[in-house]
Every structure is written in structure tokens, then in C-alpha cells.
């Protein structure tokens, strides 16, 4: 297998020193995390690495040496080789780079279990006119002219230690090095990889043997955060170069907010516990109150927001990525919601618009009632040229007209108080735009209560007619519905049963158009109201569940949510191994929304279109926007 070295971009220009990182088991790859500079005391380095291993949980080791000689400094070849004896490893990497050149060179020293050094040269020299990088790879006779032992010829390739390095040396009848292992340098930007989260997020603890390479690389860099605290300007035992060695990043605002957040969280949690205990007290839990509060969407939204706030304000820090994202999304959603609500309130109360709104409410209700009366008069006559049954028509029409009259009287009774009620209730829109929308939905429901009542009456009447008709039709044909077997059976009726049944059937059949027409008209009205309420509920749902924080991250810091990586081949010089640049491939926008949606009480219609049509035809009552009691993700 090819040896892959993940090299951070920040260390490209680092001074010579030791490479610290981790070998990834099973993949023949190494992740370089930092460079420790000379001068150092090997004992202190070993101690420091041991300490870091404990703190971070990552299997850190010294991978090898890095040499970038400055002008005037001669090469330290033998010194670097001797270093490998101080830090006994299975494989020791010797990376070197010359000033003015872009490409790196890599030597790999291997130790077999006896501690004997077998050097394998991985350096690719340009060979005259040899085929470089052509098909088949025969041209790599790097052993020619190379100094040092041509240990590769021995072909043992025993790699000591526990590292399962791939690629034994096979001597396939070629002289010199034989089938050489090759090296790939993969450059990565350390800060971005450290902050990024690879999707799909693995919630459990993965098995390190079967896990694929990229999650391991990302995980290694992420977990090695304790390693990046000391850098080369500190007075510590070791001087290192990594992404933070140019100075630790920080923002005063973020630090202040972190300090302030704990007491604020505690205070908010205390207030919330008071509120929840108040809500669940005995007084407010009487049956009628519970029934009303389950029907009003404002109360539902209130309870929902309380729950959200409890999640956000819990004093424990979120460790898992999903938990953190959920908290952040809820917080940002809530913040945006409240600010939009405050904007709305300030706009509505500025020129006493709310007073004007209240003043138009009663005339609007009057207008609706008048329209309904006209509609009923039309139905009582000859609507659309249809001929109705005069008696039934008059009964139903008068019945509904009386209802409207009652309703208007109640509205006029309430009219002096409406402005005040609206004024105070409108203030609750300060809690958020979602509350304003739920309030609007509730007010609509209350004001159109008479339409709802008419719909129920019409539907029940029609339903009874249809069931009666179907049952009597069965009697007409000599059949009966068997309740036990849930099927239609034949039955012999007596003569008088048949006679009465036929009479009733005829009566119902001729009354059907009248009831059907009333039902149709009121169902249409009810559907209009339901559509309006549905739109409001959907938008409340949308505001509740849309992950604004994740969206913001995706737009402005796209490297933090990674779907994968992409590689780019860097131009290199002849004679150096392959250099690749690893960039982060950000998550697609649709996946962001799907992964990070806050679960809500979904308000989607629970019946399909077909079921809805069937219910309408049969006259069953429809409640398409029923709130579900369990959360839907």
C-alpha cells in the first residue's frame, strides 16, 4: 500500500524539528499534528507526549523528523538518523524540504523486531530519460545511485511494532529497490479540519479497526486540541509549530458572553421551573381549562417554547455535536422570532393601529353576518335554478338565520371590550412572531365559530341522510348489513317492513338535494377558513423548525459542516512524491435542512387527498390540521 502522510499547511515553513502525530492503523497513513523544534531534551519530549496522550485520548507518537535547513546550515542527515534511535518506532519518517523548492522528500526508516535498521529509500529521483510516472511504474529504479544500504533488496520489509503497515517488499526480479512503496503527501488546513464536522455524524463509538480513513483523520485532529495550547513562543518545555502558533485566536465578545452565560442560564432555568410548576398547578388543570388550552394554538405554542427554552438554558455544556447544533438552532430561532415579534409590536402600536384594527373588527363581523344572511336567503329561494323542497328549505333557512342573529347579538355585546382585550392580548406578540400568528389563528377560529357550527349541523344532517339512504337502499334490494361479520348479507323482510322502508327511502331521496346543497355551501365556507388557519400553522411550524444557525454556518463558514473532502493535485517538481491538497467539501443545503430540523408538533394534514374526499362525500367531520401529540422529526 502507498504510504500517505497528512501534513498540515501551517508547518510548511516550520523550522527543523521532530514530527508529532498519529499513525492510523490498517491504512498505512500518518497524520502529522505539529513540529517540535530544536533544541529539546528527549526526556522532556517523551514526558510531554505521554501527558498529551492522556489528556486528549489520541494515540500520539513521534513520527519522525522534519528538516528544513536555512541558508548557511548544513544538512543534518546523520544527526537525524541518530534521532531515530532515541525514539524507537516501527517506521521513522524523515521529511525534508529545501528552501526555494516546493516539493518534499521523504525517507522511511524501518526497524525489524531485532532493532536492526533497514533503510528503504522512498525518494524518487529523476532518472535520465526514464519513464517517470508512466504506465506500469517500472521506471522507479530509485535505488540506482542512491547512497546507503540498498536494504530493500533484502525484501523482508518487516515492520516492527504493532503498526500494520501494508505493502511488503516484493522483489519481482528487478534489481535495486524492487516494488517500492510510494508516498503521497496530503496537505490539509489544520484549523479548518479541526473545526469541521464530518457528516453523517456517528453517534456511537466507532470501532477503530473498521472505521474508514477520513473520519479517523478528522477525529484525530479534532481530539488533539490539548496539543495546540502550547506553541513556540511559550516558555514551556517544548516549542511547537501548529495552526495556533501564530497566536491564539479569540474574541472578547465571545469570551464575555461565555462568562455571562452561566448566571443567565441559571436564572432563566429557575424562572422556567416556576412557570412550569404554575402551569401544572391544580387550579389550571381543571377539565374545561385543559380542554380549551388544548384547542387554542397559542397555549400550545407557549408550552412548546417553554420546552425549547429549557433545552437551551440548561447549565450543562453540550458535548455532542448534534446536541450543540440543536441548542444553537433553537437559540437563534428564538432570538429571530422575538426580534421579529418586537418589530411587529412596535409597528402596530405606533400610530394606535391596534385601536383602528379593533374598531374595524366589529363592522367586519357584521359584514360577514350580512353576507351569510344574503346567502341563506338565496338558498331559501331557487339557488342556481335548482328547485328545493319548500318546507325543509324554510326550516333549515330559518334555523340558520336565527343562529346568525344570536351571534351578532353576542358580538355587539362584546364590542365595548374588544379594543381593550385586543390591546393587551396584542402585547403578547412580544414573545415572538409565532405567538402573533397563533393569536391570529385563534382569533379567526373564534370569530368564525358560527361558520363552524353551521358546518357541523349541515354535515350531521347530510351524514344521517346518506347513511339512511344507503341502509334503505340495501333494504330495497333485500339485503342487510351484518354488524358481526362486517359484511352485507341477504335478509328476508316482512311486507310492512318493506313498505315503510320504501316510503322512507323515497322521502329521503327527494330531500337529498336540499340537504346536500346546504352541506356543500357550508363545507366550502369551512374549508376556506381551514385553509387560512392551515397557512398560519404551517408558517408557525416553519419558523419553529427551520435550522437558522446551521444555515448560517453553511453560508458563512462552510467548512464547519463537511460532507466529505476533495483533492486537488498540486504542481510539483520532478523527483518529488505526489502532493495533494485536501479541501473540505461542504454539506449540501438540502442535507443541512434535513439533518438539523428541530422536531416539532407537525401540523401537516393527516389524511391523504383521497381519504379527505371520501370523508367529504360521506359527510364525516373533517379536522385536517389536528395537532399531533407526539413529536415528528
Amino acid at each position, binding site marked *: 500500500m502507498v504510504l500517505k502522510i497528512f501534513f498540515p499547511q501551517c508547518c510548511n515553513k516550520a523550522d527543523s524539528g521532530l514530527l508529532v502525530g498519529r499513525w492510523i492503523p490498517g491504512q498505512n497513513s500518518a497524520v502529522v499534528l505539529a513540529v517540535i523544534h530544536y533544541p529539546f531534551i528527549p526526556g522532556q519530549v517523551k514526558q510531554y507526549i505521554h501527558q498529551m496522550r492522556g489528556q486528549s485520548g489520541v494515540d500520539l507518537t513521534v513520527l519522525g523528523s522534519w528538516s528544513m535547513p536555512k541558508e548557511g546550515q548544513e544538512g543534518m542527515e546523520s544527526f537525524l538518523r541518530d534521532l531515530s534511535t532515541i525514539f524507537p518506532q516501527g517506521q521513522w519518517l524523515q521529511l525534508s524540504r529545501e528552501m526555494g523548492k516546493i516539493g518534499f522528500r521523504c525517507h522511511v526508516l524501518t526497524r525489524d523486531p531485532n532493532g536492526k535498521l533497514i533503510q528503504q529509500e522512498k525518494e524518487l529521483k529523476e532518472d535520465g530519460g526514464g519513464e517517470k510516472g508512466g*504506465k506500469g*511504474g517500472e521506471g522507479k529504479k530509485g535505488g540506482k545511485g542512491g547512497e546507503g544500504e540498498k536494504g530493500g533488496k533484502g525484501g523482508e520489509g518487516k515492520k516492527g511494532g504493532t503498526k500494520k503497515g501494508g505493502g511488503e517488499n516484493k522483489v519481482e526480479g528487478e534489481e535495486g529497490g524492487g516494488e517500492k512503496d510510494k508516498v503521497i503527501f496530503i496537505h490539509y488546513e489544520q484549523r479548518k479540519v479541526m473545526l469541521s464536522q464530518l457528516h453523517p455524524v456517528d453517534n456511537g463509538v466507532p470501532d477503530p479497526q473498521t472505521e474508514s*480513513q477520513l473520519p479517523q483523520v478528522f477525529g484525530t485532529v479534532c481530539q488533539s486540541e490539548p496539543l495546540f495550547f502550547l506553541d513556540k513562543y511559550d516558555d514551556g518545555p517544548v516549542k511547537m509549530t501548529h495552526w495556533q502558533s501564530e497566536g491564539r485566536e479569540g474574541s472578547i465578545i465571545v469570551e464575555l458572553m461565555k462568562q455571562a452565560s452561566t448566571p443567565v442560564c441559571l436564572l432563566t432555568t429557575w424562572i422556567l421551573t416556576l412557570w412550569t410548576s404554575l402551569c401544572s398547578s391544580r387550579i389550571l388543570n381543571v377539565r374545561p381549562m385543559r380542554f380549551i388550552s388544548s384547542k387554542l394554538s397559542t397555549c400550545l405554542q407557549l408550552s412548546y417554547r417553554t420546552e425549547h427554552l429549557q433545552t437551551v438554558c440548561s447549565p450543562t455544556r453540550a458535548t455532542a455535536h448534534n446536541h450543540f447544533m440543536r441548542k444553537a438552532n433553537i437559540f437563534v430561532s428564538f432570538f429571530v422570532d422575538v426580534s421579529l415579534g418586537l418589530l411587529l409590536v412596535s409597528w402596530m402600536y405606533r400610530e394606535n393601529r391596534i385601536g383602528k384594527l379593533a374598531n374595524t373588527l366589529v363592522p367586519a363581523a357584521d359584514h360577514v353576518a350580512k353576507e351569510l344572511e344574503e346567502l341563506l336567503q338565496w338558498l331559501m329561494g331557487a339557488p342556481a335554478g335548482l328547485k328545493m323542497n319548500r318546507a325543509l328549505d324554510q326550516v333549515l333557512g330559518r334555523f340558520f338565520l336565527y343562529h346568525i342573529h344570536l351571534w351578532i347579538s353576542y358580538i355587539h355585546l362584546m364590542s365595548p371590550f374588544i379594543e381593550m382585550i385586543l390591546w393587551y392580548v396584542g402585547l403578547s406578540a412580544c414573545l415572538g412572531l409565532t405567538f402573533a400568528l397563533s393569536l391570529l389563528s385563534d382569533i379567526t377560529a373564534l370569530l368564525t365559530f358560527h361558520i363552524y357550527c353551521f358546518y357541523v349541523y349541515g354535515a350531521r344532517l347530510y351524514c344521517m341522510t346518506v347513511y339512511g339512504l344507503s341502509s334503505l337502499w340495501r333494504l330495497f334490494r333485500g339485503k342487510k348489513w351484518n354488524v358481526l361479520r362486517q359484511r352485507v348479507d341477504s335478509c328476508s323482510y316482512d311486507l310492512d317492513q318493506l313498505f315503510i322502508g320504501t316510503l322512507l327511502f323515497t322521502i329521503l331521496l327527494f330531500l337529498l338535494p336540499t340537504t346536500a346543497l346546504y352541506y356543500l355551501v357550508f363545507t366550502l365556507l369551512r374549508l376556506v377558513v381551514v385553509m387560512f388557519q392551515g397557512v398560519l400553522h404551517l408558517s408557525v411550524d416553519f419558523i419553529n423548525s427551520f435550522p437558522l444557525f446551521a444555515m448560517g454556518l453553511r453560508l458563512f463558514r462552510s467548512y464547519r459542516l463537511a460532507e466529505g473532502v476533495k483533492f486537488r493535485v498540486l504542481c510539483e517538481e520532478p523527483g518529488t512524491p505526489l502532493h495533494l491538497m485536501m479541501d473540505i*467539501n461542504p454539506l449540501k443545503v438540502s442535507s443541512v435542512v434535513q439533518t438539523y430540523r428541530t422536531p416539532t408538533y407537525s401540523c401537516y394534514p393527516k389524511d391523504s387527498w383521497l381519504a379527505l374526499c371520501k370523508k367529504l362525500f360521506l359527510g364525516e367531520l373533517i379536522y385536517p390540521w389536528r395537532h399531533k401529540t407526539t413529536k415528528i422529526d
Partner: protein
Amino acid sequence: MQNGDQHYSMEDETYTDIDGKAISLECQSHSGFCREFTVSSAKVSIGRVMAYTCAVWLSAYIIFFVTENTAVLSSAIIITLVGMMVHIHFVKVDHETLLIIGSLGVQVSSSYASGRESTDFIEMGKIKDIVINEAIHMVRKIKDIVINEAIHMQTVIYYLCILLKDPSDPEAVSSVVPLFQSSKPRLNCLVKVYKSCQEILAKC
């Protein structure tokens, strides 16, 4: 070619896609185990763009002549602009690239006419094999009442695809990732790419 890569552009044979339009294949070998193949389709042709634009605007003028409503003209302009932007950003693929790095993985990327690139990287551990598959390509859906016409309407095409391993069963194939979907090169082009890829897969 100053950096030592070897570059093979169009050789003696010209490649076409399954509809007969000319495409070009470029193979770049960065090292012994890293190769890049780029298949470029035909660019957006000026003639077609002008034809569509003229058709839309002519019909808009006719409707304006009939209805005397200027909103028709402005909506035609907006429709043309939006349609063109959507087409070059989401629909028209300029070239597709396959970058195969031995023992690391395979990267598949499509580059659209507006410059947008959509990339996908598959790790070597997940790849079972790269093969050429056959498929029946339905040009038009037609009921096969008349047998002659039904045969003409379907063609057998070849496509290159990556077989992915099933994580639970290493011998089974869990899914297939087809390559070069927009450019749809013919078999001669595919065979060239296939042979190169198999060399690298065999080495690692």
C-alpha cells in the same frame, strides 16, 4: 508539461458520445498511481442560444401586439435571463473529471458551464471494482404495438461505473455509482479509461 506529468490529449481517434456529438478525452498521469481523466462535452452553442432567445422574444412581441400589454415584454426578458442562468448553472455540464489515486480513493467531479463544480470522493476502502456495464437506453416511450418501431426506439449503451462494497457483507455489492452521466461517451473512450483505472486498482 514542465512538471513531469504525462499528458495525453486526443489521439488519432476522435471520440463521440452516444448521440453522435463530438467530445474530447484528456488523460493526465500525475504519478504512477494517480491519474486524472477529463471528458469534455460540447460547449453551449451560440446558434441554439440565439434561436431560443429569438423565438421567445418574437412570441412575446406577437402577444404584445395582440394584447397591448407591456408586462408581456418585460416578463419575456426576465424569463429569458432566468432561464439562461438556470441552464448554465444547473443543467449544462462542461466537463466531467475522474481522479483516481491509488490506495486513497476515487474523486468524481462535474463542472458546469457557469464554473460551479460538484465533487464527490469515494474512499478506496468502499470501492469493490470499476466496471463497464450495459444498459438499455429508452429514447422515447412508445407502446410496443408495432414491433419494428419498438426496436428502433431503444438502444443499448455502455457506461462506466464504480461498484461499492456493502459494509455488512464484503462480497456483495451495495450500490453502483455511474460515471460520466452527462457526457455519455461511447465504448472506445470508456475502454481506455477502464484499462487505466484497472492498472491502478491492481497495483494497490
